[in-house]
């Protein structure tokens, strides 16, 4: 797997601090929903920094050469502020991927799917929702934890998906909820009990987000009787991140 140069075809501001970058990648081999790629930045003098980003879009077909990333800006971060604030349409961007074969959903996989995301952890889950909309037949649910209504990434996309019978979307607000939503607080045992698929449903659960979020949710799932082997996690590294 070697580095290749992609071109920024479009950018979309998702929230005040997150944006989606549409990349044109001439020789993209395709990917599975949930995989990530590495982005490498090089300064004038050759200094380099790389980070991993989940692929937000599903692999549509072999004729399409665009993929999407969604990056949440981490204050004081080295790479994410550049991707969110500096990179612009027409710029080149070095990438390498796709990578990862565990935190993935495949259409031929049996059983319902429970997705649980915190903050930018929704990115690979969105790829799974998109892939599922094309090829999935089993039920899928998304439980998405955000700070406040303005922090929701993919608002219109999620509304559209939620309108379909196959997908159930539930938002959890940790700091501030919209009018008519009384609950403010983190995901806890009650909420898992109420909104997540049950162990006996035979669901595979995908949990993604900042490390403490994933740790808490995965522990709650196991305590609720879920088989650890059916709980897949992806932790977004050292960042305290949004939750």
């Amino acid at each position: 797997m070697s580095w290749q140069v992609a071109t920024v075809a479009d950018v979309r501001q998702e929230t005040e601090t997150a944006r989606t970058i549409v990349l044109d990648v001439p020789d993209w081999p395709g990917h599975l929903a949930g995989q990530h790629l590495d982005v490498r930045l090089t300064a004038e003098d050759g200094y380099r920094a790389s980070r991993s980003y989940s692929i937000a879009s599903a692999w549509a077909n072999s004729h399409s050469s665009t993929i999407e990333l969604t990056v949440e800006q981490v204050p004081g971060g080295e790479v994410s502020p550049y991707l969110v604030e500096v990179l612009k349409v027409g710029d080149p961007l070095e990438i390498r991927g796709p990578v990862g074969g565990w935190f993935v959903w495949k259409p031929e996989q049996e059983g319902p799917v429970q997705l649980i995301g915190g903050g930018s952890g929704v990115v690979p889950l969105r790829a799974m929702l998109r892939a599922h909309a094309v090829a999935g037949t089993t039920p899928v649910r998304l439980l998405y934890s955000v700070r406040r209504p303005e922090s929701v990434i993919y608002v219109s996309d999620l509304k559209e998906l939620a309108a379909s019978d196959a997908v159930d979307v539930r938002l959890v607000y940790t700091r501030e909820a919209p009018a008519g939503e009384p609950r403010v607080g983190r995901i806890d045992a009650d909420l898992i009990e109420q909104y997540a698929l049950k162990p006996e449903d035979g669901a595979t659960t995908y949990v993604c987000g900042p490390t403490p979020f994933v740790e808490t949710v995965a522990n709650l799932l196991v305590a609720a009787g879920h088989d650890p082997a059916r709980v897949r996690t992806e932790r977004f590294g050292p960042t305290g991140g949004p939750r």
Partner: protein
Amino acid sequence: MGIVSPGFTGRRGSGADLPPGQYLTHEFPVLSAGPTPQILTDHWEFTVTTETGEKYKWDWAALTALPAEEITKDIHCVTRWSKLQTTWKGVSLDTLLADVETGADFAMAHSYGGYTTNLPLDDLLDGQSWIAYEYDGEPLHAEHGGPARLLVPHLYFWKSAKWVRGLVLSDSEDLGFWETAGYHEYGDPWKEQRYAGD
């Protein structure tokens, strides 16, 4: 040197001698593929199975009765953080394997929870690896692999299997969990062996 990213300057300046592509962190990030297994030391057991099927076993009391070492090493995660001068306590694999009869070249580490990772046996010997059960003077927390994990600091940290429960020795090299999922079979941070083929 590839393409320049217009307007990118970078943070730089940790001053530390890190493997290429790594940055310094003072936190202790957690990365694993599933929920954190909660293993009680009462139930903990470590086995070494040789290529002929012979088994050697240690329970918690047996492990902690062995001579332990204080280890201070830099660690490097494939997700690009490095942490310097981390301190551990544990039993050297030289001690554990001293009486094990084997001519095997490879080891597969197995963990509670089902995780596996492969290593050349040579990389586990000669003071290069430990079964660690203390971090920074305290019992190793479950989220960092407690009660005990493999510690192989000279390779990317995914080789330092958390919640380790055994080694299976073999003449041929099989691939472990991440190695099967596209990561490098060996994982030398100084050579940036992240993905298969690097």
